[in-house]
Every structure is written in C-alpha cells, then in structure tokens.
C-alpha cells in the first residue's frame, strides 16, 4: 500500500543522493548522478531515467528545507497516501506537516510548468 517497495526504494535513493551531495559539497542532482555512476552498466540506464524524471523535484529540495526524501517521493507520485491509510514516512516529518509541504511544492512546480507523471519503474 501507499507505494510499497517502489516508495521505499525512492526514499532511500533520494536520501542517499542528498547525503552524498552534502559529503561532496555538490547539488543533489550531481549526488544522484554520482550514485548512478557507481552502478554497473546494466543498472545505470534505470538509474539515469530516474534522475532525468526526478531532476526538477530534486532541484526543489535545494530551495526548500522541508522537502525531505519522503516529500520528494510523494511529489514524484512514487509514494502516496491511499484512502483510509496513514501517511508513511521514514524521516522526521517536516514541521508544517507533510500534506502542506507537498501541496505548496506542487504549486511551485506547476508555476514552473513542471509535469511529473508516475514513473514506470518496474
């Protein structure tokens, strides 16, 4: 439910990208690029597809401290909250609340004309 394994993988990947970026003092997009470059060839294509689609949202993370990996994966539609279910989060919830942060970030992305469709990661 709520995105299941795909959601979990997304949160981990975004979190690692964020941490790698901090360690190397670079942008989060470069951080995730760096992670992809560590993978063997056949896994790099999937990783790069993820980066390509996720880049606008990952860039938002640099400007909004409340966009945690959990929020980023909600924005990517890889995590969601199904009716009657609680919202899942691995990292501490952002102060204004997950729902509010997601809503505001979506509005900003729409203003920038960024469309994020659900990723077809199999």
């Amino acid at each position, binding site marked *: 439910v709520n995105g*299941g394994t795909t959601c*979990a993988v997304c949160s981990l990947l975004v979190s690692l990208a964020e941490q790698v970026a901090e360690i190397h003092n670079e942008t989060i997009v470069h951080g995730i690029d760096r992670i992809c470059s*560590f993978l063997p060839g056949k896994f790099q294509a999937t990783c790069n597809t993820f980066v390509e689609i996720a880049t606008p949202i990952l860039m938002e993370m640099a400007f909004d401290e409340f966009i945690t990996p959990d929020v980023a994966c909600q924005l990517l539609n890889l995590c969601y909250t199904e009716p009657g*279910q609680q919202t*899942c989060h691995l990292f501490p919830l952002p102060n204004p609340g997950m729902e509010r942060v997601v809503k505001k970030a979506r509005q900003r992305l729409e203003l920038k004309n960024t469309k994020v469709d659900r990723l077809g990661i199999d």
Partner: protein
Amino acid sequence: VDCSTLPILKELCELIKTRFGDDHLPIIDVDQDRFSQYKTLRGSHWRGKDCSDLSAELYPGRKALRQDEVLDSNCNGIYGMDPSVLKPFEETLCSGTKRMGTILLGDSAGAHFHIPPEWFTASELSLEVFRDVAMIVENEFDWPMTSAVTGYMNSTWSVLNGPTNSLYLRLRELNHCNHRDFQNTAVNGANSRNMNSSDQYGFNRDQSHDHPAMVIYSLIGNDVCNGHSDTINHMTTTEQMKRNFLSTLKYLDTKLPNGSYVIATGLADGRILYDTLKNRVHPIGQWRHDVKYPDVYNYLSCLEVSPCNGWMSSNESLRNFTSERAANLSRALQQVATSYNANNFEVKFIEFDFQTVVDKWKALGGETWQLIEPVDGFHPSQIAMYLSSEVLWQEIVQQLPDVIKSLTNPNNARIRAVFGDQGGY
C-alpha cells in the same frame, strides 16, 4: 512489457519464469540434472558444482558409476585407478565409508539473506561496493555459499565480512568423499505451507542412485512473519503446522535414500531484534543520526512491505504474541518429529536457540547487534551464520553421537595427498 508475450523470447521467458522463479532450479543447466557449472542463478553457489553439464548421469551426491574408474560421476574429485592395488580410487578410498550429503529446506535465513550495508551508507558508496551487484541480484540477495548449512567458502567480498563454517563443511571434513554433495534449496519467504511440496523448491535426491543425506528443515520465522496489517490472521496455526510438516515428511520419505536423517529446527524468538536494535541508528540514518531501527520497522509496516510485522514492531504485546505463536509452532514440529515413523530416514527435532549463539559471541567479546543484518534488521549476520553452524553441529552430535562417529573416513589424509582440493567448487 510481459516478456512471455514476445514471440522470439517466449520460450526463454517461460524457462526463467517456471524453472527459476517457481521451481528455484538452476537456469543454466544444459543436461537438466538440477546441477550447474554456473555459479549464480541457483547454480554452484547453491548446490554442488556439476562436473559435466552435458550428461544427466554425472552430478554431485550420486553413487559412483563403475566406481569412477575413468570419469568422476559424482563430482567429488576422486576418480581413476589406484596403482598400488589396481582398483579404482573411489573403491579404495570411499566404498567402505558411510556417505552423507547435506540438504537444506529453508527460508531466507537458511539462504543467508544479506544486503551490503555500504549501499545504504552515503560515506561508503563507491564503485568498489557495487562491484558485485549483478552477482548479488542473480543470487536473490542471498549468500548460500557462506551460510550455516551449506557454506563452503570464506568471504572474498568486501561487502560481506566474517568467517564461514557449515554443516556441509563438517560432514565433508569427516569424509572427504562427501565433497560437493550439498543442496541449498532455501527460498526467501518460505514457510511450512509452501514447503509441503518440496519438489517446488528444487529438492533433488534419487532413492536408488544417490547417497543418503542429512536434511535440515529450518523455517525459523515466516510462519509467524508477514507484512499484512492484520498480521495475526495470517500466521500459521499449530494444526496447519503439523499438517504441513507431516506432508513434507511423507514427501521426503518417497525421495530420500535409506539411511538419511531429517533434522527439524524450531522457530526463532524474534524479540531479540527489537530489544537489541531499538536504540541503534540504521545505516541510512548514519549521516544525520535521524533514522533508528524502529523508524525503519514502522515505515516498512506502513507500506506493508515489512518481512515481519509481528516482531519488527514497537507494539510489545504483538511481539510477545508472535513469540508465543512461534513457540507453539515449534512444539507442533517437535510432536510430529518425535511421533513420525519414516521408512527411509530418522527424524530429529532441535530447538533453534539463538540465545546460545548470542552467549557464544558475547563470550568472545562481541555485542548482540553484530549478529543481526544491519540493513534489514531482521536476518542473522555472517558472524551469526558461523556461530549458528557450531550450535547446530553440537546439537546434532548430541542427538546422533554414534551416527556422527560412524561418518569418519580413515582415508581422508590419502585423499588430500592424492587429489588435493578435489577440484574445488
């Protein structure tokens, strides 16, 4: 895209889907004898390496064909003529001895599930830690080759630390003629329900052509572990457990050569997981110290992808209930094991007392958390594998002292001198 709908790939897809996905058999197995020369994809990391993939008559564990005068039919590395007596080596070095293969019917703990913690630690990510990612995926994130029952090699991987010892290595040490005679048919998520037809899990033994085997039936958690939010409703009941185990024993009686043994282990008490890890930081939270194990447990439960809601839970009553059910299921296994009369094997029951492993490790100066896989916070680590094999062996020796004594081959030194590593693995 469902690859089985593609005309050219259909047959290959079906092969992968059924043979690998459902039956858990090696994919690369030309002669279809269920043994392979390829390491991963249920190959020689999981079961003794095939000495010929072009003849279904040659495979590990079989009785030697024409005493292996010319060919090594059972892949134990012993073949040819002994010039001192003009008899085949297999006859002079192995014939008079009692042979015993090793077979595991188990779950992810038996297969040794391990995800490298380096993959979740930002400061340690590098090309090196992902070097073996293909092998790891092809082995379903399992490391049977370093496991407690069928492990045969010390880890040479930077992402897996710790020594290896196993039941197989001990039986091989007693009699070098047992070389390569092992099968790890464990499957991640296996429980007594899907084990009651072991055929599905690639178990392979022929009553007339193969040597007896020591079968370890070890399902230490999945009968009480599941990811459902109503986890208790999905736990196996004691009656179901008895029925399932009985069904497996009946099946084994039609497959195992006479003189075999089935050792059933009880379920683990998983309360140790939460008790040990509740205040520890998970590798993904190392950088900011913001994610502890209970956070990971709750997150996985929320997504309903937890391997074990019962034990990986901050709800103490639920953890206690899960342990109580696990103990009841162990008693059910014990009752069946002590009352079942098989035609071809003897059944024994041993507890899986992880506390003994903990005590041993603490006596060596270690700490309990080192015995648990850091990424999933659920499975036994490589060190736990090593120590579990010792505990398992001590229990077996205690229950079958005469049998174990009778397995010694006095020709081992000569086998080493003549055949060296017997072809390795």
